[in-house]
């Protein structure tokens, strides 16, 4: 029985440091993240994130597919929020081509994106709670996520990788009665949120496990390039939906919840509030849904003019940006680059876990809400 | 009235606050508030006390408060056998001290207020330090005034000397200021030496130090009309102290140099309050002095000589503050003249009026200096009338008052002195009148050179002719925008003092002018041993007409002085230089202040140094020789002891150590450091024991 012990000579009464590998096969690293922890007893001295275990070269692949095929590949990045990945990509290309998207299409896109946010947050809530030991919440959250997946299935026929958008609009109009079902889902979802809160929000153990864990100030969060709920949890008001509205967001009322302490509990509360805001947006969109076509005027062969553009949307995980260069000649992008929120948020992990206990590492991986498919791409 | 002890204590508290806490923590406003607040409270108390005093009938205006015991009774030998030396912290309120506390607190408060603005350029800690000193000074001054024994007064006396030193040297980074501080302090010590000897003698003679008791005892003694008795000796010694404090010949040299201090200090200490302490002390001991006529004569002569000498020097000085300083010395001479001729009340009256107008003049000059960006030379001023009307007007009133222009305060008090002098000795009167004329001359010379004529000062930013509104205080960069009126905090005290300078005289309007000379009757009880005793019954009286005639003469002389000044400095400004050339010899003498400083330097300072060198030589040769001889003897004996110690004592000790060391070489083989070997040893013991048990059965 040995524990490899890097021993610091001359330091009396010093316990040895322990190097612990967490992952890539570990139940709570959300995929294939490997975190190399240096421990002093149970306390984390330092952490190194090792990524790349599911690197598929999505960006390179995209540079060798034509513009429409790329939508399919974006599904495979953040596979628990494929619709927002699609949205970001198609809007970027639309921006490059300066295509006008019909209002109805933009409304439906907003609904899809917000439904996607609910689904993604459900997954996050379930796994986060599971990591901290509350296993019932996982099953509750998945129960509701199932409803969202049903709605997506009805809309586009897929439950995970939707391929649900097209450059210039949408492939399909919504099925008859779909909007009623979405509305019914909104009504269903709200009491369920209270159910989650009942299990967690005021639970002493939950608060004890998340309060003051992974505290990060707004400045530091900004400096690390965090985005999405981890950034807002530190009180920085940054939401692409508000700051640079895309789709139809500028037409709806919604609030950006902000944290005060920048700890895990704040981030938890923010995501719960985002559920409610998403429901609010969906309801407004359903109510004000305009009539009209869902596809704009787009040439048959998509060949954007030469140029480059960067466009970002607020995915459930944070700011998802696409940087695309077109040479104007070929049917595939010259350069395709993604700014994935999961990857940026993962940078914060090392800072967040330092000084905490091993058990908190699990909670902190949960709180930054990463999807390794998006990190590695 | 039982709270009069609070009157000095309040500024003392202010000083403690500012000095202990304020220098480090207070901002300027707080420091100023603390200082002014305590002074205002003190003034209020003084007013209340004074009002209560007035409420008493004339004979009973005497109140003594003992706050605490200071020196417990000690048996000491006195002329009358074994006396009990006992000094309480006791304070006396009688008409004289009542008047003095009003003057000190009242003018003190005005000067505090004035200083708030005047010292505004100072950095923060120095600001608080300044107010600490100022308050401390007021504390000691009030202690001096209110003290009912010689020793309490002496504490105040030394305290004001200390504060004077601190305040003169306030800008201690300036060599001349710190030198002036030291000079004031040392010269005062000479006077204090006389004072304390006088106190010793008072105790030896009377067996007590209480003023009242001393006065009562002294009143029993015969007047030493001829020759020097013990009373005369006491008075002479006390007078030496007064000379030092009140800057009389020959110890006046420190006062003009004291003008190195900030102007409010000059006004408060060196014009209105501290320098009058000598006069006050003489007045306090009026009974003693009146039993020593010969000393009185000396007092009068010294006062007169000082008055004239200072006045003549004042004629040619060009530094605005020095003119005022010599004027102060001269006026103090007047006061001593008054006391010398037995007119204690007149002296005190002049003391009061002088406090008003001299404080006014000093503050005015401070205002001018402030306006001229720290320029003190009158030759570089001129024409300031248009820039600073308030200062001009108030200073003008002050000058008129000091010159003895009728209906202003100086007129009444000075004429009272002159009148009493006339009664005493005609020659003295004539000289005094001449001095009064000179006073008028140099005061108006000052006014004319400062406020009239052409502007001769340095040019300023923003153009010469732009005599605009440069009222605002220009912060830290000290960009000077030309002469300007001072801020309100400075002008208001000026105005108040000007009003005082005009009105203060009306408490002593002489009978010849239809007045009742109220002040004299008010003060009278303080100068006699027993209230109600008709002390000055023997004094001769002139008719009112003759008195009026004397007034007219002095007014004429004053008018002449003013006219001469007008002619020399307004009509024909060149006359002044012409006169200076024509009378080059006297002018040079006067400009150099009669070479008194040089004389002192040559005699006393050098003499002291030569003596000190001699003593040094003695110390080095004889005293050190003896000490060194002793040292050598010690060294020699210790050498012997060392040899013994090294070879006998150390030898024994080393032997013990050696035995231990050699022994341990053997024993340490046993101590292997292996615990199991020790256990083995134990086991051997157990084995032996068990074996013994087994065999033994």
């Amino acid at each position, binding site marked *: *029985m040995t524990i490899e012990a890097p021993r610091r000579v001359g330091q009396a*009464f010093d316990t040895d440091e322990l190097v612990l590998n967490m992952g890539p096969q570990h139940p709570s690293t959300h995929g294939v993240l490997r975190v190399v922890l240096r421990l002093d007893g149970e306390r984390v001295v330092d952490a190194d994130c090792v990524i790349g275990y599911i690197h598929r070269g999505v960006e390179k692949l995209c540079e060798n597919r034509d513009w429409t095929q790329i939508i399919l590949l974006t599904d495979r990045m953040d596979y628990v929020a494929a619709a927002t990945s699609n949205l970001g990509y198609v809007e970027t290309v639309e921006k490059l081509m300066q295509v006008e998207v019909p209002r109805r299409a933009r409304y439906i896109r907003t609904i899809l994106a917000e439904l996607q946010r609910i689904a993604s947050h459900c997954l996050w809530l379930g796994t986060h709670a599971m990591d901290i030991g509350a296993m019932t919440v996982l099953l509750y959250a998945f129960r509701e996520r199932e409803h969202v997946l049903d709605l997506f299935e009805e809309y586009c026929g897929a439950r995970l990788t939707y391929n649900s958008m097209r450059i210039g609009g949408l492939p399909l109009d919504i099925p008859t009665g779909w909007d009623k079902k979405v509305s019914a889902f909104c009504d269903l979802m709200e009491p369920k949120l209270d159910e989650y809160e009942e299990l967690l929000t005021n639970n002493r153990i939950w608060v004890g496990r998340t309060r003051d864990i992974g505290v990060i100030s707004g400045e530091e969060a900004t400096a690390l390039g965090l985005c999405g709920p981890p950034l807002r949890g530190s009180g920085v008001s940054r939401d692409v939906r508000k700051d640079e509205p895309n789709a139809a967001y500028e037409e709806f009322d919604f609030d950006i919840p902000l944290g005060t302490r920048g700890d895990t509990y704040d981030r938890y509360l923010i995501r719960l509030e985002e559920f409610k805001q998403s429901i609010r947006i969906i309801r407004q969109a359903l109510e004000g849904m305009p009539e009209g076509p869902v596809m704009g005027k787009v040439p048959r062969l998509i060949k954007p003019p030469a140029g480059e553009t960067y466009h970002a949307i607020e995915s459930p995980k944070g700011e998802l940006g696409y940087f695309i260069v077109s040479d104007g000649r070929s049917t595939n992008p010259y350069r395709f680059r993604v700014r994935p929120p999961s990857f940026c948020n993962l940078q914060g992990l090392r800072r967040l876990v330092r000084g905490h206990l091993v058990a908190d590492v699990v909670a902190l991986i949960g709180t930054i809400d990463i999807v390794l498919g998006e990190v590695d791409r | 009235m039982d709270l009069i002890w609070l009157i000095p204590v309040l500024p003392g508290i202010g000083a403690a606050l500012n000095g202990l806490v304020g220098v480090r923590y207070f901002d300027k406003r707080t420091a100023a508030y603390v200082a002014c607040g305590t002074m205002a409270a003190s003034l209020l108390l003084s007013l209340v006390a004074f009002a209560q005093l007035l409420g008493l009938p004339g004979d009973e205006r005497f109140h003594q408060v003992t706050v605490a015991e200071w020196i417990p009774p000690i048996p000491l030998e006195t002329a009358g056998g074994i006396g009990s030396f006992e000094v309480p912290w006791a304070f006396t309120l009688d008409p004289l001290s009542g008047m003095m506390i009003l003057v000190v607190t009242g003018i003190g408060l005005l000067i505090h207020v004035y200083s708030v603005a005047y010292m505004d350029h100072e950095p923060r800690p120095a600001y608080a330090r300044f107010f600490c000193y100022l308050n401390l000074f007021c504390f000691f001054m009030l202690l001096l005034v209110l003290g009912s024994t010689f020793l309490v007064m002496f504490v105040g006396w030394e305290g004001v000397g200390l504060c004077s030193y601190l305040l003169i040297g306030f800008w201690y980074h300036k060599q001349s200021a710190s030198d002036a501080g030291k000079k004031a302090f040392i010269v005062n010590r000479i006077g204090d030496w006389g004072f304390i000897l006088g106190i010793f003698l008072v105790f030896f003679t009377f067996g007590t130090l209480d003023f009242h008791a001393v006065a009562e005892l002294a009143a029993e003694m015969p007047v030493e009309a001829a020759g020097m008795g013990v009373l005369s000796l006491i008075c002479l010694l006390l007078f030496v102290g007064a000379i030092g404090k009140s800057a009389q010949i020959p110890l006046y040299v420190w006062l003009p140099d004291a003008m190195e201090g900030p102007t409010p200090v000059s006004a408060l200490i060196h014009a209105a309050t501290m320098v009058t302490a000598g006069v006050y002390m003489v007045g306090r001991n009026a009974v003693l002095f009146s039993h020593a006529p010969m000393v009185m004569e000396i007092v009068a002569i010294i006062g007169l000589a000082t008055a004239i000498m200072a006045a003549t020097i004042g004629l040619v000085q060009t530094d605005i503050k020095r003119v005022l300083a010599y004027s102060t010395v001269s006026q103090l001479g007047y006061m001593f003249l008054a006391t010398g001729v037995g007119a204690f009340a007149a002296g005190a009256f002049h003391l009061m009026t002088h406090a008003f107008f001299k404080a006014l003049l000093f503050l005015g000059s401070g205002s001018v200096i402030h306006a001229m960006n720290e320029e003190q030379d009158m030759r570089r001023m001129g024409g300031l009338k248009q820039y600073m009307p308030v200062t001009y007007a108030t200073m003008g009133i002050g000058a008129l008052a000091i010159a003895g222009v009728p209906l202003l305060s100086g007129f009444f008090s000075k004429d009272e002195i002159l009148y009493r002098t006339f009664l005493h000795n005609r020659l003295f009167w004539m000289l005094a009148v001449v001095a009064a004329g000179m006073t008028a001359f140099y005061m108006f010379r000052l006014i004319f050179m400062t406020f009239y004529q052409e502007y001769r000062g340095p040019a300023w930013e923003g153009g010469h002719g732009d005599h605009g509104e440069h009222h605002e205080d220009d912060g830290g960069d000290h960009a000077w925008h030309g002469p300007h009126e001072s801020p309100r905090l400075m002008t208001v005290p000026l105005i108040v003092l000007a009003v005082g300078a005009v009105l203060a005289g009306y408490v002593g309007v002489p009978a010849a002018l239809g007045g009742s000379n109220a002040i004299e009757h008010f003060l009278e009880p303080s100068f006699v041993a027993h209230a109600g005793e008709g002390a000055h019954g023997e004094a001769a009286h002139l008719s009112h007409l003759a008195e009026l005639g004397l007034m007219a003469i002095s007014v004429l002389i004053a008018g002449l002085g003013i006219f001469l000044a007008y002619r020399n400095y307004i009509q024909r400004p060149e006359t002044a230089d012409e006169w200076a050339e024509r009378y080059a010899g006297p002018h040079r003498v006067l400009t150099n202040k009669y070479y008194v400083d040089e004389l002192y330097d040559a005699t006393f300072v050098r003499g002291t140094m030569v003596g000190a060198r001699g003593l040094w030589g003695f110390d080095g040769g004889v005293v050190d020789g003896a000490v060194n001889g002793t040292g050598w003897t010690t060294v020699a004996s210790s050498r012997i002891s060392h040899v013994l110690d090294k070879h006998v004592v150390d030898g024994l000790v080393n032997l013990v150590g050696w035995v231990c060391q050699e022994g341990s070489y053997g024993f340490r083989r046993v101590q292997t450091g292996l615990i199991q070997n020790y256990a*083995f040893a134990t*086991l051997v013991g157990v084995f032996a024991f*068990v*074996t013994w048990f087994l065999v033994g*059965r």
Partner: protein
Amino acid sequence: MLEAAVFYTLAVLILGLGILVISARSAVHSVLFLVVNFLLVAILYVTLSAQFVAVIQVLVYAGGIVVLYLFVVMLVSLKRAPEQHADTRRLGVTGAVLAGAVLLEVIGIVVSGAARSDAPAGARGAGVPEAISDPMLNTEQIGWVLYTEYLIPFEVASMLLLVAMIGAIVLAKKNL
């Protein structure tokens, strides 16, 4: 008969395990043998109808102290066996031999003592106040003696434990 069988079985096991404790190569095995040894000693106590002491033996010795040993053995992970470094001056083997001699002597004393006719086998000691009567009351009686006659030693022992606790914390803590 039964009593003798139980005693001999236990004695053999206890001694055998004792030898295993001091001879086992791995310290963890040593600890394991020690635990079993202690449990057997506890059973021995039960046969002597000292149930309370037996339970205390299990609870404190086997369940507490030896767990501590086990912890330390696990924490002290050795890179080289202690036997690699041996001081030549140690007298271990001699000591073992000497210890054997002492054992023989003691056994001799015991046997000779048993041989003597006046040995008070099974007799009560003189002037003994407390008698063991009902085994069901064993605990109560011990408690009674402990809290009356031996109260001060009991308190001293508890103080000793407190001091030992603090001492152990101070020694083992990295930084106080």
